[in-house]
Structures are given as structure tokens and as C-alpha cells.
């Protein structure tokens, strides 16, 4: 982390960048927030640890409009989002100085709570090169858990430790993949339609239409979302689980299909713990199977699967045929 801070200060001092976009330590051990650093003294609060899960690439849409370059700290998975946004002309590469930061998986405070660790006063082991065990001092005594058990779902299906785009790299990355990316989707596919319906009905009935999934999503970069716009008659805010939640989540997933990098932010931020990544991953799985493997944000040129076609694509009837 110190190397990152030193380098950021250096680039700020020599005028290469006008500001640094990173994370500021929170007031609790696990809630650092995305923040801009413009002066040397700001860096007292700079932090980069296991709780810095936020994907900063979407902030670059606004940062691209500012004077001068913004140094942005991107983890390997975040760089896919940045590159996809570049492809869509939503961020300006010229306005970004990308430091690819190392990552060994990011932590999910909800998982820690689910492990029964409550009243956290301090944490050891969450540092960027910390141990494999997390030790918590809590109001109710010392607790421990393994780093891996506290990782975000997305880190268990990590896309790899390569950065897709960067100006320089600082820190080592570790591949944390220990699960099959599509296993959860396959599990649901194996259910009967009734079970699938019940599963999603139950999950989506929790949705409170807070739009956190949409607003955090780097692919949901519309200036105005159709669900906020009066152009379609779809601008509703009610939480009515007989239809609206399904409409919202299906259409949201559809709009990002072929553009979603599977960064997992939607599931990370959902206050109701809805596994929203399943929608996106289902589309990714279908796209991979039907149109060839495609990873959004892994290139600058290739057209997305929904803005291209081949003459012998599968017919929609395949959905019923494969059962």
C-alpha cells in the first residue's frame, strides 16, 4: 500500500495527474469509501485493503469530464469494466492514469456477519498482503475466520489476475478462483420450472427497488435509465412483486447482456442479498454456449454478442428444445 501511496503522491506532485481516485479509510474497520485525493496531506486516510471491493471504473465517467488526468486504482476485474466503458465512449482513456493494483480477493462484511462475527471493533489480516486468517476484536470477544471464507462471491470465480488495461502495475495479485463460475446457474437450470419460479419469486420479493444494483453497475451507465424515463411507460417505483421486480431485473440484465463484465458489484451492494449476478451470469453462459465465448471488456474492437450475429445462429426454439 505504501508503494501505491508513494507513487500516487509522485504523479500528483509532478503534475501527471490532477487527482487520485482510491479509497479512504472508514470510521469502522470495514467500511472504506471511494474517494478523491488531491493534496499530499489527504493521503493520511488513503487505504487499500481487503475491504476495498468497490469497482472504481464507473466513477471515471464523471472523472473524465474533469480538468486533467485522474489516477485511478483498478483491480484486475475492475479493468474489464473500464475497458468496456472505453469501448462505449463513456470514459476517456486520455483522462485516466490507471494503476493496476494487486488483489488477493475482496471481503464481504455480510459473510463475516453470517459467520456470527458481530460488534467488530478491529480487524487484523485484511491488509493487502495480510495473512490467510482474519482476526476480529469484537464487543463479544475475539473471533477468527479464514480470509477465503469471508471473500465476496465474485472472488471465488475470479476472472484472473491479469489487468486488461493499465499504465502501471503495483502489487501482486493472486488468483482466488476456487469455484465454477456457472455452477450456481447450472444448479438453478437443473430445477423444475416450478422450483425455479419459486426460487426467483422468493429472492425478488425482497427487492426494495433501491436501484443500488443499477447505480453501482458500470454497464448501467445510461444517463437516464428507462426505468426513470417517461419515454416508455415503465417508469414505476412501486415494489410489486407480482411483476415489476421481474420486469426491472430481467430488462436490466438484458440491457447489460453482452456488456456485463461479471464484476459482481450488483450482488455486492444489494441490501437484501439478492444474488443478482445470477441474471447476468445466465446471459453470459447462454452467450458463451450459443455464440462462442465472449468476455466483455477483454478487448477494444470486437462487437458485443447482441450487436453482431452469424447467419447460422441458434433459433430461439433451442430454449424449449434443451428443456
Amino acid at each position, binding site marked *: 500500500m505504501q508503494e501505491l501511496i508513494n507513487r500516487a503522491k509522485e504523479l500528483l506532485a509532478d503534475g501527471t495527474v490532477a487527482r487520485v481516485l482510491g479509497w479512504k479509510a472508514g*470510521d469502522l474497520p470495514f467500511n472504506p469509501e471511494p474517494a478523491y485525493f488531491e493534496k499530499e496531506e489527504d493521503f493520511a486516510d488513503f487505504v487499500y485493503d481487503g475491504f476495498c471491493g468497490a469497482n472504481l471504473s464507473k466513477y471515471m465517467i464523471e472523472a473524465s469530464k474533469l480538468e486533467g488526468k485522474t489516477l485511478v486504482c483498478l483491480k484486475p476485474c475492475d479493468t474489464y469494466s473500464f475497458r468496456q466503458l472505453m469501448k462505449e465512449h463513456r470514459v476517456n482513456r486520455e483522462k485516466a492514469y490507471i494503476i493496476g493494483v494487486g488483489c488477493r480477493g475482496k471481503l464481504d462484511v455480510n459473510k463475516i456477519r453470517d459467520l456470527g462475527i458481530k460488534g467488530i471493533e478491529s480487524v487484523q489480516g485484511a491488509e493487502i498482503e495480510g495473512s490467510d486468517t482474519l482476526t476480529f476484536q469484537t464487543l463479544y470477544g475475539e473471533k477468527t475466520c479464514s480470509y477465503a471464507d469471508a471473500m465476496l462471491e465474485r472472488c471465488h470465480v475470479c476472472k484472473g489476475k491479469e489487468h486488461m488495461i493499465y499504465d502501471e502495475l503495483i502489487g501482486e495479485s493472486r488468483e482466488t478462483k476456487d469455484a465454477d463460475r456457472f455452477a450456481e446457474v447450472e444448479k438453478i437450470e437443473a430445477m423444475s420450472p416450478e422450483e425455479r419460479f419459486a426460487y426467483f419469486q422468493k429472492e425478488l420479493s425482497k427487492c426494495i427497488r433501491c436501484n443500488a444494483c443499477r447505480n453501482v453497475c458500470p454497464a448501467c451507465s445510461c444517463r437516464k435509465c428507462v426505468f426513470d424515463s417517461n419515454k416508455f411507460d415503465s417508469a414505476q417505483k412501486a415494489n410489486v412483486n407480482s411483476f415489476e421486480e421481474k420486469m426491472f431485473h430481467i430488462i436490466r440484465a438484458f440491457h447489460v447482456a453482452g456488456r456485463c463484465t461479471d464484476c459482481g458489484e450488483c450482488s455486492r451492494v444489494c441490501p437484501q442479498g439478492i444474488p443478482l449476478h445470477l441474471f447476468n451470469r445466465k446471459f453470459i453462459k447462454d452467450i458463451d454456449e450459443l455464440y462462442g465465448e465472449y468476455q466483455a471488456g477483454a478487448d477494444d474492437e470486437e462487437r458485443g454478442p447482441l450487436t453482431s450475429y452469424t447467419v447460422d445462429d441458434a433459433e430461439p426454439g433451442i430454449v424449449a428444445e434443451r428443456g
Partner: protein
Amino acid sequence: MYQIAKENLTALFQKIASLQELYLPVKNAGQVNFGVWSEDAEVDLDTLKSVKSPKDVFFPQSETLYTCIRNGKKLTIEPEALQEQHFVVFGMKACDIKGVEVLDRVFLSDPVDTFYAARRDHGTIVALACHEPEETCFCQVFGTDCADPAADVAAWMIEDTLYWKPMTKKGEELTASLADLLTEDDSAQEKVEAEQAAIRAIVEKLPYSNLSLEGWNGDVLMEKFNSPLWDELYKPCLACGTCTFVCPTCQCYDIKDYDTGHGVQRYRCWDSCMYSDFTMMAHGNNRTTQKERFRQRFMHKLVYFPANNGGMYSCVGCGRCVEKCPAALNIVKVIKAFQKQGGEQ
């Protein structure tokens, strides 16, 4: 004071539900929220905070106000019936009850919101003391004692026993209806006091308990409003509505029409001041940037509301926003940022 063994709680819930509707913390797909009790519902009294506050029992996230029905060129209007059934909310925490007090100020002041008033009139609240407060809690800052919740009935879960203390006439009536399940216990007071002491000891150790609200009142309105701190504080905000929707006191709503095809259902639903179309009017929006929207939320909770309500803050320190904000922003960080700036000056 009464008591009932934890193992008999299901019987208690069955009994209440047989008399009136019962809302209580229910776990659904891994998350605890207040919901209607049923035989299959997975009741969860151990989780300290429900994801959403239970305010929606009185102020639902969406509710129909009236329905217009179109038949050819004819229109008829059907008003929505007010709440007529009695119901019980079991397991509300002290902070959430304080939240209801805030809502009362809004909805029961003239002009009274009849939908809300009907629900308040028909609801009986059974409060549950917080057995193990967490690091995100700061109700004490707002003068709430989570060890001694003020409601129609106050309850404490101590080991395997629930202690039950009616506090109001509604509480007495409910207690009377459950007489065959609740037993009087003379030693209860002592046990409850011990539990309260333990809770309060934890509260003293909570990281936010010593948060100072000094300088937050109506007198400093313009100073706070114009502070340059907002220029920085809002920046990570994603403009989602999480904080407002989990909040026990946020009371803003939007009124919209749902076109049913046979007419229009006019409904109201929670709105969020974080949304870009919040207070959108025909001419546009008077808060054009997220900074202004972000500022609005905290100014409202900490300045405008107390200024209009005899110093009552419209934050109750439940800590839900601390836990749920996707960008790790929250009211505590705002208060601390101003405190720090004050210290520097």
C-alpha cells in the same frame, strides 16, 4: 411482568395470529425483514436489525390510494378502504419505535394522513430490547435506551425466556388476550434489570456512542447548508435509494398512477431524495446535482426536521445506512466530517 418460555413462542404467535394479524421479523431467502406471521414463516428474533426498518407496517412501501375504473367513456372512482383490522407488531427495537415517533410527527400532524393514522390506531407494538447491540448502533446519541424500549408492550429475551411487560392500555389488552400463555413472574424485574445493565454496558463501549451532535440545529441552517464539505462528501454517492429505503424515519413518498388498462390505480410509494427525479417538476428539478440531493438528506435529518419539531432529530441511530450503503457513506461520517472541521477551525 409476565414471562413465557422461548419454546412456547410459537404458541404465542399462533394465539396472537388467531386474534389479529401479526407482523414480526421473518427470514426470507436469507434476509430478515418484518413480515406477516404464518405457520411456514421462519421467525428470526436473533438478528438484531431487520434489513428494512419495520416502518412499512404503518407506512407501506407502496399503497393504493384510490382506483379509477374506466368503462368506455365512463369513469368511476373507488376509494381505498382504511385499515380496519387490529394487528400486532412483535419485536420492534427501541430505535425503530423512535422512528415511528418521527413518522407520527409527520403523518399525524395536521393535515392528518388518514391511511397512516388508521394503521397506527389499529396497531399494537411489542418491543424487544436489544440483546447484543452492534458496532453500527448509535441510538444512545439520540437519547434512546435500547435496553428499555418504550412501546405498548416491552419485552426482553433473556436466555430461554421472554419477559413481557405491558406499558399501555393497548398493551394491557393484548396481554389479557394472551393470559393463558403468559405467566406472571415476580422475579422478572430483577432479571430484566440485570439484562438492561448488561446491554447498557455494551452500549457504552460502542464505537459511535460518543458521537456528538453539537452544532446540529436549526440555528446553523445556512452555515451548514453552504459548507464546502458537501462538495467532497457526496462524491462517492451512487444516488441509489438504499439509505432511504432501509431508514426508519425517511418518510418521503411519490404519488404515481399505474395504468391497469381498465383505469388507473393511484398509489403512493416511497421516494428517495437520492433519486434524480426526486421533486422533479414540470420546469425541471431544483436540485440539479447529486451534491444537492445528498445534502438534502442530511440537512433534513439533522437541521430542518429538528428546527420544525422542537429539536427532534429525524435520525434514530439504528445504523442501517452504516451497514447497507454500497459506497460506505452514512450519516455518522457526515456528522464526524463536520465535527472534524469544527475541531480544526
